[in-house]
């Protein structure tokens, strides 16, 4: 279906058809791992990798997969990829894997994955499937990253753990900024996401409910 317009396959999910703010998928992890920027970034990259690989694998196998067990096959492929990602994180970025804790495992149940596999990879050739996977993964990563930036800056006063507010605001004479603990709570992520959705719909009249 989307074979003819490859650019749209990749760029669409980045903004106009973003999996998080338009399709409203993957909200759970978007609330949970966006307190700090580092885990959010790693989560975004992890999901992009898993989604791109899973899309390609399922797309390659699409003509062999028995229809009756196709969901199970998709799950097995995704689960295997997620476990590998989790093992790699534990071995090479231990602190991040601790911060992500169960959420890496929960990539398996991330609606974006099964949604893209079922809706796109099963019906398209590997290359468009790869683009679709990368596009959706990066679209998800981008929203996570924006949310995490706002939350970390105001909630902890840091960016990537680097002290920003204490260094530049308080030392510049505007003393007394207190970190806003509310931003470290999941509710703040929901409000930020809401604001992004608001902004996006205001810019894209096509998305507004008729």
């Amino acid at each position, binding site marked *: 279906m989307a074979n003819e317009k490859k650019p749209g396959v990749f760029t669409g999910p980045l903004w106009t058809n973003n999996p998080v703010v338009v399709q409203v998928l993957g909200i759970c992890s978007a609330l949970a791992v966006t307190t700090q920027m580092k885990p959010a970034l790693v989560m975004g990259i992890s999901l992009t990798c898993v989604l791109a690989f899973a899309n390609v694998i399922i797309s390659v196998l699409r003509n*062999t997969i028995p229809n009756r067990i196709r969901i199970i096959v998709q799950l*097995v492929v995704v689960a*295997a990829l997620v476990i590998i990602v989790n*093992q790699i994180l*534990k*071995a090479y970025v*231990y602190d991040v894997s601790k911060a992500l804790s169960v959420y890496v495992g929960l990539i398996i149940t991330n609606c974006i994955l099964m949604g893209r596999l079922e809706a796109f990879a099963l019906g398209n050739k590997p290359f468009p499937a790869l683009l679709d996977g990368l596009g959706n993964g990066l679209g998800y990563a981008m929203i996570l990253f924006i949310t995490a930036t706002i939350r970390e800056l105001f909630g902890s006063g840091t960016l990537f753990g680097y002290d920003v507010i204490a260094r530049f605001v308080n030392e510049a004479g505007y003393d007394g900024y207190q970190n806003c603990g509310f931003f470290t709570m999941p509710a703040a992520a929901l409000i930020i996401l809401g604001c992004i959705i608001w902004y996006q719909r205001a810019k894209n009249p096509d998305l507004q409910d008729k």
Partner: protein
Amino acid sequence: MHKTMNRNSNVYTVIYATVLTVLVAILLSAAALGLKDKQKANTDNEKKQQILQSVATKIGKDVTFENAAELWQELKMDEAMFCVNTNGEKVDGKAFDIASKTLFSGGKIIKDASLPVYVANIDGVTYRIVSMYGAGLWGPIWGYLSVDPEGKVAGVSFDHESETAGLGAKIKDDPNFAKAFIGKSIFTDGKFTSVSVTKAGKPANHGGDKVDAITGATKTSDFVGDMIYESLLGYVPFLQSGTVNSDCCKKQEGGCCEKQDAGCCEKQEAGCCEKQESDCCKKQDAGCCEKKGCKEEGKSECAEKAECDACKKAE
């Protein structure tokens, strides 16, 4: 294969599922085996960090994931650790490989447990670090507590699996909570009283010393107090014996215990340093009176020197 076989036949489905499962299993096993060493190194390093964190103020710098292995080497922690049983006797076992979780059953230390003890010699002082484990509000909590030669807490470190971020998670994240434990005594008059964690203004659960609970995380704080009590309970005989050896015996040479009667010395061996002092004070030993912790029955402070002298004459 899919061209010759019906993709919806049972045989095809079963073969497909089997082949896929086997392939995935091989792949995952390979990944797990290949990365095992690296992962083990990470978890070991984290454990070292937590153990050393309990003496961080004595080392004089923060222990991070990065410098933990180095400090561990510097302090020669590997050579100094050992295991004790619940009677305080040394037993065989590799202290570092013991998972604290396996020492507990139903929140209590099991009878024949080999409890790990880590020893850190910092600036000539020996700190014994014991391991703690218990239930938190949402998942397990654990930590390490270092005891100085006088039986006082030299530092603690806590960690948790799933306490609420910003509230219960403060047991790990808020350095002031851990700092509050420093200097607290786990023995009162030679009796194990642990260090309780209770709301500000409330008394300690077992008598003795306490620290204030974290505001908004009363439950987690309660569980921390319980964990300390239950975990240290197994170590009591060991900690008491050590407390006497390194502390009281010195005082004995210093004069106080020269005049000790047999009963007093027995108590001393059993680890009742504080008790020993109070018993001595009742006998109005002059050397004892100079010591701060001595309490005479009915009096809050040391007996007056004059009284002691009078007592001496009477003796």
